[in-house]
């Protein structure tokens, strides 16, 4: 990964983490704030219900009180004090209840007999279940909850009682209002809130007893456990109900009769849907802005990374160029400051010094090469010249010899001179050949054929009498095909390697040649079982004029390497002292590009 990418990734990650943290913090904070607000709203509604409940109870009590002081009730009480005939008053309760807006009103005689009932007129003559009991007849300052029996059902009522005394006889009034949808509708609810009333008038929790301000509650089953818990514990409870449309926090408030019995449960539902929607909106807004921030961060990060790394990249490019041998690199257009500027200047200085060192090194190498060439040339020429000088000296001394002897010496000297000059010529020829390596003439050639021809050329030498025994193993890949190369030069390479291998085994041994083709290259391996090469020998093996042979010129492997290089191939050697040596050549099938 480049420095720019790393820097970009680092800055982007930092921006992303920062944005995500900010978004999460804002969203979480908003959620908590709204949850607190919702809890306050719920508490407010519960408090409102308590106030409404208390107010309603006081109103009911006041209305029953007004009825108790009405002329009609006074007359009924007085009449009943004189006569036990209830019949004339059987219909008294209904108009009185209607006038005071009560849903229930029972006029009950001293013995508990119902004289008149507004909610159940036909029930006259029967005992009232609770109005004449001492605890209820004593009356209360406000209303209280009571299960009120109706013809077809038992209703939950907020009732009050009042005792009227006339003629020494008591007359009880029990009136009230029904806790139903209308009562729930009187509660002021905030959006997203709802109030439900469960009437605990049956032995078991029944969803039919749960009503909302619009009547029955269609989905009541999830609320039943909460209702049951409140009824059992007689304490407030809260639970979050998971509806398909979203969560709803429901606070359940027990509604108790004076004797402590839970006759109803008020459920205040605070829908989390609005909150969830709001939080969701905040979240998505945060995500949107966060995403925008991240994208912006990426862009800025990229620009920053590019600005910071561009000089470094240019320095790296320049360094790579230097590494590739192009030392003539300048960073003149690099506009930086600070450490990068120092680095740039140091780089410039370094390249200048490298160029100077290189030029000096080239000069030195040239001198060394010339010295080596001169030494070699002197060495090579000195050997053939010595016999020539001796011969010439012999001729000078033989000038005084008789003609016959002189002639003999002369002829012998001529032969020697001739041979010496031939040797000089050969030495000069080899140097000339190395100096004048011709450019390869590429054509499709068969490496196998070249190997076979080369082996055949040396076969006679190897099998000559007195020659140390060398076994030759040739393993050619029949599918090797042809390659693009100069046949003559490749042949020279093979022959040179074969010759070296033979020379490396003066006491005989095993020679192996293999060819293989793979991945677009042809590989030729030449192995011998000779003494092998040491580390220093392997390192300098392809250096011109380096030889381990007594009469070698040190140009053979240099020429081999040159040819292989001209064919865009590779040559290397594997060897260790005492383990022979193997020369590997790889030549591309398609030749140099």
């Amino acid at each position, binding site marked *: 990964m480049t420095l720019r990418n790393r820097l970009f990734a680092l800055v982007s990650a930092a921006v992303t983490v920062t944005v995500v943290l900010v978004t999460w913090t804002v969203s979480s904070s908003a959620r908590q704030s709204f949850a607190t607000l919702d809890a306050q709203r719920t508490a407010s509604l519960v408090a409102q219900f308590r106030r409404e409940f208390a107010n309603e109870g006081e109103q009911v009590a006041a209305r029953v009180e007004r009825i108790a002081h009405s002329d009609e009730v006074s007359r009924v009480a007085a009449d009943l004090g004189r006569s036990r005939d209830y019949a004339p008053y059987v*219909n008294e309760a209904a108009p009185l209840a209607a006038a005071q807006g009560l849903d229930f009103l029972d006029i009950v005689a001293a013995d508990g007999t119902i004289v008149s009932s507004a909610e159940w*007129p*036909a029930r*006259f003559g029967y005992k009232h279940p609770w109005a004449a009991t001492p605890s209820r007849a004593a009356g209360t300052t406000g209303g209280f909850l009571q299960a009120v029996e109706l*013809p077809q059902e038992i209703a939950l009522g907020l009732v009050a009682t009042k005792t009227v005394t006339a003629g020494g006889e008591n007359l009880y009034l029990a009136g009230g209002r029904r806790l139903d949808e209308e009562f729930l509708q009187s509660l002021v609810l905030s959006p997203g809130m709802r109030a439900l009333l469960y009437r605990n008038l049956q032995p078991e929790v029944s969803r039919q007893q749960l009503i909302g301000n619009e009547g029955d509650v269609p989905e009541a089953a999830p609320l039943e456990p909460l209702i049951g818990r409140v009824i059992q514990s007689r304490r407030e409870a809260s639970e979050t109900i998971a509806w398909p449309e979203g969560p709803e926090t429901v606070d359940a408030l027990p509604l108790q009769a004076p004797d402590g019995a839970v006759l109803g449960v008020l459920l205040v539902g605070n829908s989390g849907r609005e909150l969830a929607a709001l939080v969701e909106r905040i979240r998505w807004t945060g995500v949107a802005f966060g995403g925008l921030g991240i994208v912006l961060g990426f862009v800025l990060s990229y620009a920053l990374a590019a600005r910071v790394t561009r000089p470094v990249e240019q320095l790296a490019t320049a360094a790579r160029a230097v590494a590739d041998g192009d030392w003539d690199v300048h960073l003149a257009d690099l506009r930086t400051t600070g450490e990068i500027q120092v680095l740039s200047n140091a780089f410039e200085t370094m390249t200048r010094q490298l160029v100077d060192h290189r030029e000096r090194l080239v000069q030195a190498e040239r001198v060394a090469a010339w010295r080596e060439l001169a030494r070699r040339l002197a060495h090579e020429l000195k050997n053939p010249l010595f016999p020539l000088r001796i011969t010439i000296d012999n001729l000078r001394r033989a000038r005084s010899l008789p003609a016959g002897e002189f002639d003999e010496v002369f002829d012998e000297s001529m032969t020697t001179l001739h041979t010496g000059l031939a040797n000089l010529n050969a030495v000069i020829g080899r140097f000339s050949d190395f100096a004048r390596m011709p450019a390869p003439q590429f054509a499709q050639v068969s490496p196998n054929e070249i190997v076979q021809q080369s082996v055949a050329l040396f076969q006679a030498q190897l099998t000559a009498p007195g020659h140390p025994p060398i076994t030759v193993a040739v393993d050619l890949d029949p599918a090797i095909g042809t390659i693009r190369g100069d046949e003559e030069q490749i042949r020279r390479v093979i022959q040179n390697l074969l010759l070296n291998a033979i020379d490396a085994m003066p006491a005989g041994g095993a020679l192996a040649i293999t060819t293989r083709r793979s991945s677009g290259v042809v590989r030729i391996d030449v192995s011998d079982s000779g003494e092998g090469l040491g580390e220093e020998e392997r390192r300098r093996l392809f250096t011109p004029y380096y030889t381990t042979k007594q009469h070698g010129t040190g140009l053979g492997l240099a020429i081999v390497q040159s040819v292989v290089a001209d064919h865009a191939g590779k040559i290397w050697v594997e060897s260790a002292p005492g383990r022979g040596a193997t020369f590997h050549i790889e030549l591309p099938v398609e030749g140099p590009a």
Partner: protein
Amino acid sequence: MTRIKPAFPALVSVLLIGGAVTATRPHYGGTLRIETAGTIQALELAAASAAPEDANTSRLVRPLVHETLVAVDPAGGLRPLLAISWEGDARGTRWLARLRSDVKLHDGSVLATSQVVSALRARHPEWQVTADGSDVVIEPGREEPDLPWELAEQRNAIAIRQPSGIVVGTGPFRVERIDAGGLALRAHDDYWGGRPFVDGAQIRMGRSPSDQLADLEAGRADMVSVQPADVRRLEQRQLRAAASRPLELFALVFEPHLATPANSALRRTLASAIDRAAIARVVLQGQAEPADALLPQWLSGYAPFVLARLGQPLSRSVVARLPPERRTLSLRVGASDPTAQSMAQRISVNAREAGFAITVQAPAGLGPRFDLRLVRLPVEPTTPGRAITALMTDLGPRTLLMIGRVTPPGPRSSLEEVAGVERALLERDAIVPIVHVPELYGLGRRLESWNGPPVSSSGAWSLADVWLGPDGSGTP
């Protein structure tokens, strides 16, 4: 001054006495305003399929125009009307009715014996009706000891159709106009019993009970039908009520699926649970009588001895063990009948104490099947035999079939035989009498009557003797 002084007390006394006499003396003139729940389109006999309130309106209005030869008197006997006397042979196969002379029809002509004969022949083709001077001889072709009671029936009223097509009668009023809004009657100036005090009567029909009561209280009506529960209200408003004898029976009738012997204990338990006295005394404000039999005591005289239920009612615990469908019953009652509604609610409460759950429902379209009905049956003010026969007719063949084979009493059946028929009708408790209720009317403050109340004990309107005094409420 000295001459005047001794005479002043006497003058004051004369004026006071004169004023009192003026207040009680009948006045001629004015239009009587009556309201009814039922409606009639014509004065012909109501069809058998007519609604009960329409049939009742027809029964009340028709005698004002068309009279019968005899009529039921307030004591429950017969009194002369167009016939001044009647007599029959021992077996009742030949009857002779002597017509009142100088009876004039509404067109001014004198009612001829032949017209009476023709009217009776048209009504009873099977009778042999002939004229013998001013007498009408009726030979019914079989023994008819109660023929005078038959002649008192409204269907035997004398209505004469003139060649012009107009039907006239001899009653105290003649029809001036009849339409959807009501019936306008004019006084028959030549009425044989003397011209009515009022000039006419305006009968508004199709009025609901509450509207009638409101109109009466507001002085917009002089006589309206009222419910028993309204009587106390009338009294509180210083208005009067008039009542007939109990002429209606409220009874529970079980549907056939509960009239089986297997449900006899259930029916008996339910019948025993009903507190008739409370219904009569409280729900109907003492305006009704608990019914011990189908026929009221005043008519049969044997009512307390008819009911003799066999077996004990089921205890509440036994009822509680009954299958829910057997102890949860639906009681059907007329939606527009507040009295029946109130009674049904009370019956429901009584049944609840016995362990039953009765739902009161008004018939509405294709409602659910009901288990019992609260029916309202008119009781004819006639002989017990004829009355029980009429009741059986009103109960209908379906109910009679459910009860079993019960034969109506014959013309010569004794009272014991009639009681036996009634006992047979009641012994299975498939029909449970609840109360007998009179016909009740509220009377306006200016309504006065001469020689008896405006509604006789037999339920007939005696409007010929009604006169209108000053409006006590001040309403013009």
